[in-house]
């Protein structure tokens, strides 16, 4: 080896880099590992969620028509504007690129009734992004599911618009909207919706939560892509099945079965799209399963014993609050100590 050659190689380190056309090697050092999985990134995960939401959004547009379009526009616009505004106020670099505001906006829209007035969606979006996420320090730092924070806020502030009757617009030309929501029809009048309607989603309800089929499709996609962990929906559905099953056996045989519980009232939407939000759910597989069980149990408690017919939102928010506890509690046993 000639020293001349060595010098050349070192020289090349200080030459300015021509980014477009590499002509000489430029050697940099960095700690290991030197490989990274190119197929995963935070944005990629968000894009996966958006893809998974396609059937849900399509179904909502099909069933609710203009109502769905309107609510989507309001919530998306609201959450993007809120993200821009709040991030700017905190003097941070823009975070729109990570797409999380878009995901929050769509999930929020899908969890609101299409009939809600524009200011409800807008305020919900601002609360979701501003209070639900940015105040905690942005994506990854928030304790509560942003979309659910927004929804809870408007649910309490505008009880009328989001109470059961708010879903109905008897003068509407869109069929679904002129009916009561299945959950409410049952709670109030004991009317049991046919399972097939719940499955296909041709009933009234929040935009995204009516079609069990669409939620299942999207949810399976997320699980196959490993964007969400199966443990959360599994735990959630298990809890609902068991408690719903016991309630079936113990309660009045009025035709509202555990299947109605699962297919109706945003349960599947919650199980696959809301409870699975990585940021606000536990880290370890065991923790995730416990979290899912907890959400499922709370949903059933709320449905069976409270005035809220759906329960998903409060169940998720409550379990979000105990997530740090679960994390501390479910520290896995390291390899070598099992």
């Amino acid at each position, binding site marked *: 080896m000639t020293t001349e050659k060595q010098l050349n190689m070192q020289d090349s380190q200080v030459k300015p880099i021509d980014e477009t056309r590499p002509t000489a090697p430029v050697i940099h050092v960095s700690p290991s590992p030197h490989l990274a999985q190119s197929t995963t990134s935070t944005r990629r995960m968000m894009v996966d969620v958006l893809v998974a939401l396609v059937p849900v959004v399509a179904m909502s547009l099909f069933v609710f028509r203009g109502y769905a379009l309107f609510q989507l526009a309001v919530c998306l616009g609201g959450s993007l504007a809120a993200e821009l505004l709040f991030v700017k106020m905190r003097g941070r670099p823009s975070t729109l690129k990570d797409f999380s505001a878009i995901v929050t906006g769509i999930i929020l829209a899908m969890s609101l009734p299409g009939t809600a007035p524009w200011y409800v969606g807008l305020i919900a979006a601002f609360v979701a992004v501003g209070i639900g996420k940015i105040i905690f320090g942005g994506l990854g730092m928030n304790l509560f599911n942003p979309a659910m924070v927004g929804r809870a806020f408007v649910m309490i502030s505008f009880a009328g618009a989001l109470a059961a009757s708010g879903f109905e617009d008897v003068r509407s030309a869109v069929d679904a909207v002129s009916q009561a929501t299945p959950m409410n029809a049952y709670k109030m009048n004991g009317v049991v919706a046919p399972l097939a309607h719940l499955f296909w989603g041709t009933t009234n309800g929040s935009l995204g939560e009516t079609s069990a089929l669409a939620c299942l499709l999207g949810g399976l996609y997320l699980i196959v892509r490993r964007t969400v*962990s199966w443990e959360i929906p599994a735990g959630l559905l298990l809890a609902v099945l068991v408690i719903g099953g016991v309630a079936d056996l113990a309660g009045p045989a009025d035709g509202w079965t555990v299947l109605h519980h699962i297919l109706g009232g945003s349960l599947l939407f919650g199980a696959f799209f809301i409870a699975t939000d990585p940021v606000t759910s536990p*880290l370890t597989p065991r923790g995730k399963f416990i979290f899912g069980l907890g959400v499922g149990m709370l949903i059933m408690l709320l449905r069976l014993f409270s005035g809220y017919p759906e329960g998903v939102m409060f169940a998720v928010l409550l379990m979000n609050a105990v997530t740090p506890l679960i994390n501390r509690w479910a520290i896995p046993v390291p390899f*070598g100590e099992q």
Partner: protein
Amino acid sequence: MGLKLEGYAGSGTFAHGIHPSDHKALSKDAAIRVMPTPDTVVLSLHQNIGGPCEPLVKSRQAVVWGELIGKGSSFVSSTLHASVPGIVQRPMRVTLANGRHMDTLPIKTQGEVPSDRELWDEIFGGDWPTTGLEAYEPALISRDINDGGLVGLGGAAFPTHVKITPSDKKPIHTLIVNGCECEPYLTSDYRLMLEAPAPIITGALLAGRSVGAKRIVIGVEDNKMPAIEVLRKATDGTGIRIAVVKTKYPQGSEKHLIQAVIKRQVPLGGLPSDVGVAMSNVGTMAAVARAVIHKKPLTHRIISVTGGGIAEPSNVLAPIGVSFGELVDFCGGLRPDAARMVAGGPMMGFAFANPNTPVTKGTSGLTVMTRDEVKAGEETACVRCGKCVDVCPMKLVPTKIAMASRHRDISLSRRYNIMACFECGSCAYTCPARIPLVQLIRAGKALVAAAGRS
């Protein structure tokens, strides 16, 4: 599934881990080439884990190939030999690829050097007996290994005589020879298994005899079928078995190979001997055979010089102490888009920039990565997705340890078993937020170690 190997309870794999694309096609069909003796070699006095050695020669002294030039002062240290014949130069301090500054003995080549063919024959050629090895006393085998300056050639460079030695305190039942080579890109062990299985087997029999193992098994990942076939033939009649384990990173980690083969977990902070296992790499076994049968020290090793940034990816038999720059030149030089030189494989190897950095006994490869491969993704906040948890082969919670390290919270990082992390890199490889988890954990370990000392 399972190993389908009678008497071995392992399932052939372990929980968690990752499946990076292995890039071994670059160099796996390149037969080992002997590198012509370089003009100088630079021999670090610290080649291994444990204590350094003391020089036994003065500058300007003439040495022959294989002459003893350094000796360790403690038990966990090793001896050092001249890898070329020549004149010892003034000692100098050099930065090794792992970033440590070490005293070295440079040797300027002088005198007759063997031709390529002679060198190969001298190191791997000839007969390697598989019978009649009773003539070698277990304790003497260990002594020969120490005299030969052997350290683990898989990368960890732990002095071999410390592992391969008769012990009453911790009886060994199984010797596992590690032929996994789970790091992407590297193919040096693979080529050795293909081209020189005989010394590996003789070495394994000797090592097994030394530790008193009742059985010997060679673990190889199932992406190396040609090597497995060769080893099967070569071990026929010797009693040595081949365990075909699943290809997954880090299958070559001691603890995980033991789990995959005999289904025992080495306790945290423990050693393979705690579960009755001795483990050593295939290359080390070949060196054991040479040290015991021919009483010849470790002076050369096989190095994969590979990666998208190298002109002619190769497997090279080179003397210890040769510079990485010369290896690069021997393999056609760097391509214009070369961006990072890594001593070892990309998962656990050390990046360095100075081409004069010398090869040490633990250098299993030189991986030159391209600009595209090392393009750093953008770091975002942790989205707490738990993917790092899902892949950690030690079943830790990498994100928590890393965040504890970032906040210098020593007690929290201890609660999450920071010291159990062996820096395999699986977590950082997988993290969608591109958080430098291993780097953070490494810093945290240093904090914990410092706190432990005070």
